């Protein structure tokens, strides 16, 4: 009799175990299209009574591959953010054949100036040269404006990134604490671990991270610079966004756990992720480009300034065709932050605002002492010749442009365009590589931890057969018991 009842209880345990495995398989199938889902594995083993018993469900997690994915995600998202910002800056350069750029505007203005030089008495040509100068000034203004917009956007991006990171760390804390606290049933625990990995993936897009899993399954997060972001509790990031960012003004750095993690003076700088990319744009790339624009503007203002023409000069040099907020004082040899956003055509020269375009030929915008054309002849060429010469002369530029220190104005402008495109080209190839790496590591992780529907279907078929067999055993035992009762009666 004990044989039959043992068979009965074994068959029953088989049914139970199969049902349990089916639950896992069905969960695998249901969530096959969730890229954050880690496949679960349910196995059985022999129970003490010889029946089947369900082992605890295992997750097919792979920390090495996850770490690789986190790292490549930081690289990839950082590089793509960097590329977006640089592309915005490079739009001010445009295609080399289009004439919207600063370099083209300088060239066109130079040609118009030469036309006036060839025919100084022609005031139509002079007006055209003034129009060319206005185009040039506004090209510098708008390039400077774009650069500052990119900087402000980067600053706002840093604020948003910091908020996202802090939010994710708070989510992470809840999940991590519940996992480490062992208060969850195995199913919820697996789900919580999936969610925790998903949070890590999101976090890695914002900032490069390294994780360490402790024996109680809790996870500590460090930045790739080594600063603690989370260990049992989050170390929140602090950052104060700038309301306005003017050229030459630097934005605030980001602190984590009291340590500065962005900027050149950071002891443990973060290396990858959106946050770092934004900081790099705000603190390095955009300011360098702004410096280049400012130096072009400064060279223009200086080259077109007027000198006292009196027999015994007593007046200081004064700005001529191009003026700026410091006019009439001529800027010195040092970089003037934001000059490119201020440069404009002196209205005394501009026929559209009641000025006299012939001042370009005659000089004297700052009073009679500055007048070059003392004979008052229409074909006066002296001033125009020296202006044309100044445009072609090499000048010294600040090292903060990261361009050769000695150049012509036009040479600086083309070098600047080259610098922008070189930076973009470099960022583009890095972004492409990082993206490819990220795709590969993601595929590797998903292959190791994701769900293959065919495998699950095959498992399902096995389970179905095994369930049918156990059920058959039950009915057979039932039959046997029925037969036995028949005999007794």
């Amino acid at each position, binding site marked *: 009799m004990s044989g039959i009842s043992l068979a009965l209880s074994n068959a029953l345990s088989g049914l139970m175990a199969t049902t349990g495995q089916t639950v896992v398989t069905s969960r695998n199938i249901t969530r*096959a*299209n969730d*890229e954050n889902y880690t*496949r679960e594995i349910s196995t059985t083993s022999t129970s003490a009574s010889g029946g089947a018993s369900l082992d605890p469900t295992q997750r*097919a997690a792979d920390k090495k591959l996850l770490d690789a994915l986190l790292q490549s995600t930081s690289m990839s998202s950082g590089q793509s953010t960097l590329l977006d910002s640089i592309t915005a800056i*490079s739009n001010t*350069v*445009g*295609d*080399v*054949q289009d004439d919207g*750029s600063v370099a083209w505007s300088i*060239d*066109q203005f130079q*040609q118009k100036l*030469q*036309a006036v*030089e*060839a*025919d*100084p*008495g*022609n005031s139509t040509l002079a007006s055209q040269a003034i129009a060319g100068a206005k185009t040039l000034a506004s090209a510098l203004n708008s390039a400077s404006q774009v650069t500052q917009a990119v900087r402000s956007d980067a600053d706002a991006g840093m604020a948003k990134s910091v908020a996202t990171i802090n939010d994710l760390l708070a989510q992470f804390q809840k999940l991590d604490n519940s996992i480490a606290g062992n208060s969850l049933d195995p199913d919820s625990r697996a789900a919580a671990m999936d969610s925790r990995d998903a949070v890590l993936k999101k976090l890695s897009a914002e900032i490069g991270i390294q994780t360490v899993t402790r024996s109680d399954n809790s996870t500590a997060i460090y930045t790739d610079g080594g600063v603690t972001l989370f260990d049992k509790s989050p170390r929140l990031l602090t950052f104060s966004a700038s309301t306005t960012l003017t050229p030459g003004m630097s934005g605030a750095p980001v602190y984590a756990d009291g340590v500065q993690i962005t900027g050149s003076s950071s002891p443990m700088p973060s290396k990858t992720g959106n946050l770092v990319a934004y900081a790099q744009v705000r603190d390095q790339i955009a300011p360098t480009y702004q410096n280049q624009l400012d130096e072009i503007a400064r060279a223009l203002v200086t080259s077109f300034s007027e000198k006292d023409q009196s027999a015994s000069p007593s007046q200081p040099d004064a700005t001529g065709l191009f003026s700026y907020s410091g006019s009439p004082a001529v800027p010195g040899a040092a970089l003037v932050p934001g000059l490119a956003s201020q440069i404009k055509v002196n209205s005394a020269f501009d026929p559209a605002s009641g000025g006299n375009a012939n001042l370009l030929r005659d000089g004297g915008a700052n009073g009679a002492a500055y007048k070059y054309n003392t*004979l008052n*002849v*229409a*074909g*006066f*060429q002296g001033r125009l*010749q020296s202006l044309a010469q100044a445009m*072609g002369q090499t000048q010294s530029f600040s090292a903060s442009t990261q361009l050769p220190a000695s150049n012509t104005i*036009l*040479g600086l402008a*083309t*070098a*600047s*365009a*080259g*610098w*922008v*495109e*070189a930076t*973009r*080209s*470099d960022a*583009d190839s890095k972004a492409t590589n990082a993206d490819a790496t990220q*795709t590969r590591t*993601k*595929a590797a992780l*998903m*292959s*190791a931890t*994701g*769900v*293959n*529907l*065919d495998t699950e*279907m*095959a498992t399902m*078929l096995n389970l179905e057969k095994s369930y049918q067999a156990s059920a058959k055993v039950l009915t057979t035992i039932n039959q046997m018991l029925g037969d036995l009762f028949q005999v007794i009666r």
Partner: protein
Amino acid sequence: MVINGISTLATTLLAQDSMSSTQKKLNDAVTEQSTLRHADVGLTLGGNVSRNLNWRLTLSQTTNFSEANAQALARADALQTSLDATKTTASDFLTSLAGARNAVNGQALTKQSSGLAIDAVATSVNVTYDGQYLLGGQNTDVAPLNSYQGGTAQTSFDTAFQSFFGFSKTDPAAVNITAAQMNLFLQGPYENLFQSSSWSANFSNATSNNLQSRIDNNQQVDLSANANETPIKDLMRGMVAVQETGSGQLNSAAFQAVIDYSMGKISGAIQGLGATQARVGEAQQTVTQTNAKLSSMKTIVEDEIQRTEGVDPAEVATRVNNLTSQLEANYTVTGKLAKLSLLNYI
């Protein structure tokens, strides 16, 4: 480790990824096929953008200089024509002087022909081109030569004559002027009337510095002449002397002294004008050579731009074909993979 096939989701994502990257490449290739330049020239060139930008700006400047130089040459041609006309007037006048030297009515003849010559020279020297006076130096908007008759130039002559001889030029006493006296007057006070300050005050509005023409970024040439140059002064000296001295009342010795002086000045002026024409001609030659240089540079730069920014039409056509086939293959394989599921067999 449980061996698991590649995840179903990964297969789909990878296929999507590969398709979208192929599509992007195809898109770029199609753009390149229509423009025959790289899809994103700035990205392809990278730091070489500054080099190509320089080439393009050089190209634009070269074109601009070619046009400006053509204009400058046309202006120089107009100047040459005007100098030719002045020279012709001068040599005609010279011929008439030679004929009148010994003629009975020589003084009347030369008085008339010199008056005409003065007007003709004023007309040819005061020639304009495109609204500019060609011989005005840098004073391009004022006629270089003032009208002699009734102007301050004539007054200055009258004063000089009066103070030298003690009577006015119309006085019959002029008949007593000897050849020696006449020569003394012509080479002294008369000559001085045409010296720089008196010349600029009475005869000419031109400046002595010419308009320079910039023919490329680093080169300027002088394609002009101005009315203050010696030949024009000599011409006026020769013509005014005959026109004004003695007013037809000179004795023949004094008259011949005037004619001799005048012929000397005018033949000098003809040579001088020839020299000016040669100087301008040489400058024109320089401009023509520069234009040839600019045009060959333009060809070189255009080739370089094409080489670095352009794409090979044959290569890009092949690339479009390859990418299209690749994309089609992608679609087919993805379609087949999607159908390939155990679900379809149970």
